[in-house]
C-alpha cells in the first residue's frame, strides 16, 4: 500500500509542487495550509511521515511538532522539517522537539527531499 505523506506548508505553490513530485513517486499525499489544520490531519489520518514548514499561520511548525509529540498516538510519526529558516538555533530546537531531519528549502531540490523521505521510510 502506498505510504501517506502529509505536507504542512502555507505556500500554496510550493505545496503543489511537492505534492506533484511525491504523487509522481507513488506516495499518497495529504496537505494542510496551516499549523492548526496540520495538527488535525496528523491526528485524524496518522500519515507515515510529515513534511513540516516552520513559519506557518495559526500554530507554527514548532507548535505542531510539540503537539504531535505529546500525543502517544502520533509521537512516532517521523517528521522532516522543510523550512527557509536555517539558523543553528532553529535546527537545534526542532531536533530537540523530535524532528528527524531538517532541510532548508532553498538548498535542497525536490529529488533530495524524496531521497530523504525514502531513507526514513525504508
Amino acid at each position, binding site marked *: 500500500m502506498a505510504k501517506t505523506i502529509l505536507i504542512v506548508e502555507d505556500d500554496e505553490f510550493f505545496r503543489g509542487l511537492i505534492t*506533484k513530485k511525491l504523487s*509522481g513517486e507513488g506516495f499518497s499525499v495529504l496537505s494542510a495550509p496551516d499549523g492548526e489544520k496540520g495538527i488535525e490531519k496528523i491526528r485524524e489520518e496518522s500519515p507515515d511521515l510529515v513534511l513540516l514548514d516552520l513559519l506557518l499561520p495559526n500554530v507554527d511548525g514548532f507548535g505542531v511538532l510539540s503537539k504531535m509529540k505529546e500525543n502517544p498516538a502520533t509521537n512516532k510519526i517521523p517528521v522532516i522539517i522543510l523550512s527557509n529558516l536555517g539558523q543553528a*538555533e532553529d535546527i537545534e530546537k526542532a531536533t530537540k522537539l523530535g524532528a528527524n531531519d531538517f532541510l532548508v*528549502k532553498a538548498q535542497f531540490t*525536490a529529488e533530495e527531499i524524496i531521497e530523504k523521505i525514502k531513507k526514513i521510510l525504508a
Partner: protein
Amino acid sequence: MDKKLLVFINCSLALLLLFEPFMFIKFGAFVAYLISLFCLLTFIYEGKEIMKESEIARKKAKVLAEELEKSDEERIKLKDEKYKALIVMDTFEDGVIVLDKNDKVIFINSKAENLLEIQNEDPLKKTLAKIETFSKSKAIIQALLPNLKQNFSARINAKKDLPLDIFVSLIKFRESDKGSLIILREALGNQTDSSKTQLISLVSHQLKSPLASIKTALKMLLAGDFGALNKDQKEVLEKTYIKNDSLIILVNDLLNAGRVEDGQIISTKSPTNFEALVDSAVGAYKDAIAEKKIKFKFKKPEEKIPAINIDAEKIKIVIQNFIDNAIKYSAVGGEVTASLGKVDGNLRFKVKDSGIGIPLNERGKMFSEFFRGTNAIKTGKEGSGFGLFVSKKIIEGHKGKIGFDSKENQGSVFYFDLPF
C-alpha cells in the same frame, strides 16, 4: 479734639466778648477765647501737617502699589519662564535628573522616570540609593552611584538592545551649593542600525520563500516532471535556474551581512569534523562544477585532523564563498583545488583556482563591504560584494586569520587558519 467743636467754642467766646455787659466776665472770656484760638490754630496746623504726611504716605503707597504690581508681573513672568523650562525639560528626548548637594533628586523628567522604570513612585527629594530600591532598571543607578561627585560618562547596557550613554556633570547653583546633572541618552545610532538590520532580515526572509519555490519549480520542469522539454526550452530554464540560484546566494549574503553588523554572526560553537563539513559545503556546488567542467579536487590531510570547536554553519558559509568565487572566476575547464591541513598548530583550509586573479592595486580592499574587483565586475558574473566581507568577520569571530595570494590572470589562493 473735634475741629468743629473748637470752632464753635471759639466763635461763642468771640460773641461773648463783643456783647457781654460785665467787664470781669469779659476778661475771663477773653482768656478763654485766646486759649481756644490757640488750640484752633494748633489744630489747624497739625491737621495740615498730618495732611502732608498722609499725602506722602499715599504717594508712597501708590509707588509701592505700582512696584508691587510690577513685581507681580515679574513673578508671573518668572513663574511662566520656570513653567516653560519645566515643559522643555520634560519633553526632552534624553532623561534628565538634577541632584542637590546631598544627592537628593530635585528634578527629574518623564524620560528619566521611564528609563529608571519608577512610574508609580515619587522620586523627588530621595537619593538615588533610595530610588534604586524601587527602580526596575537598577543597572543605570548602579552605574551612576559611584560617579556622582565627578564629571563622568559611560555607555552601559541597561537592557538587551538598549545601549545607554550616561553623563554626570557637576553644577554650582551658588557658592557652597553644588549638585549634579545627570543625562541618560539612548544610543540612537545603534537603534537605527538595528532596525536597518531588522529590515534586511525581514526582506531577506520574505524573498527566500518565493525563491525556494521558484528553484523547486524550475528543477521539476527541468527534470521533466511536467512533460518533456525541447532543447531551447531546456536551455532557457537552465539559465533561469542559475540566475535564481545567484539570487538565493545574494539574499543569504544580505542576511549574513545583516547579522555581521548586528554582532550576532557567531552563535553556538560545537566540536566539528572539518573534513565532513568541507564535503557537505562542496556538495552544494556539484551541479556548478559539472556544468563548467571544472576539475575539482579536495586534497584531504595526511594526518587526521581532530574535531575543532567552531560555529560550523558559519564556517560553512566561508568555505562556500571560497569555492563559489573559485568556480565563478575560473574559465570553463579550469582547476579548483581545496585542501585541508595543519599549519603552526592551526587548522588551515585553502582553495586554489586558475581564475582571473586580483589586480595588484585592489588587494587592500578585498575584504571590504560591497567591494568587487574591477576585473571581476567585467566578467559580468553576479556578486554581492558581501561574501569575503562576511567571511572575514566569521573567521575573526573565531580568532582566526583569513588571507589570499594572487596573480592577475593566473589565479588566486584563498585561505583561513583557525585555532584548535
